[in-house]
């Protein structure tokens, strides 16, 4: 357990209601490093609370119980890859995403191509 840096408070944070999950997509160069880093920097700069995981595929493969907790939320925003794949991963892990879940596709980031 670590608690390291102080981050600047962002007044917009308290207005934001969604719970953000960021996938680092390890093990493959499917999403380029600069795109993943840019998204991570944006999140850090936003001052919002978020959860970052090494690999959503790994969580689905190992049926990480955290996925079920996340899938129960109706304010979930996932920053990962193609929405069809993300939905499939949650379903395959036995915890389908609610229709309210928002999926941000890092493949479609401006610098992804």
């Amino acid at each position: 357990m670590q608690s390291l840096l102080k981050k600047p408070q962002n007044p917009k944070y308290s207005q934001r209601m969604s719970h953000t999950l960021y996938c680092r997509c390890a093990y493959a160069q499917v999403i380029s490093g600069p795109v993943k880093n840019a998204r991570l920097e944006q999140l850090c700069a936003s001052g919002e609370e978020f959860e970052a995981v090494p690999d959503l595929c790994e969580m689905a493969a190992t049926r990480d119980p955290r996925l079920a907790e996340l899938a129960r939320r109706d304010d979930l925003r996932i920053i990962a890859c193609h929405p069809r794949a993300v939905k499939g991963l949650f379903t395959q892990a036995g915890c389908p995403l609610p229709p309210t879940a928002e999926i941000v596709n890092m493949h479609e980031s401006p610098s992804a191509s």
Partner: protein
Amino acid sequence: MPAIASEIATLLDSGNAVTVSADSYRARHTGNTPPAAGASTTATRSWKPWFPVIDYDRCTNCMQCLSFCLFDVYNVDENSLIQVRNQENCKTNCPACSRVCPEVAIMFPKYSGSPINGEPVNASDLSREKMKVNVSSLLGGDIYSTLRNRSDQAKSRFSTERSADKALAERKRCLDKLQRDGFIPAEVLAEIDLTNLPSPEEIQRRAAAASAKAQAALAANAAK
């Protein structure tokens, strides 16, 4: 890259999940085994980052994947619904089952190409899949039966000119063709020990077992 983002990226890349709050962050290691000093995390994890993911919005439960896969990756649940059951059996970088799926319902999120990587399926993807199904029909609708017949014919031919070297060369030619056609990635072929391939009988045994499972599941679904 700002310091905090860089620190979080480093934690993530070494197998930690990180929860970031308004003024701090905390990390917990999520890997199955702790990363060894100096080793890449890829090499120290025990799960395989390659397995099929079924898009149940597209899947028609046709059992083509179950019938096709020789490695027992697929099976059905108690309701005869197709499932990825033994994902660790899946052959890294081989997306062959997704290519035989007539509905383009099988994804490999770590694959680079569309629509296997989960990109939306478009009309041309679907027509390409339908063309493959038609090819299957041209072969009599039962590829395995056709292969069995071919194998029987080959056996009678080989009885007069049996040669392990010739058989090996033939396998190599077939595998090279599959690679050229983009059906099997080069990295997968590189891992195959051509001197120790399963025999045609073993391949047929596995194919028959997979086909039987698929038929049983289809029959169970039809009886509902």
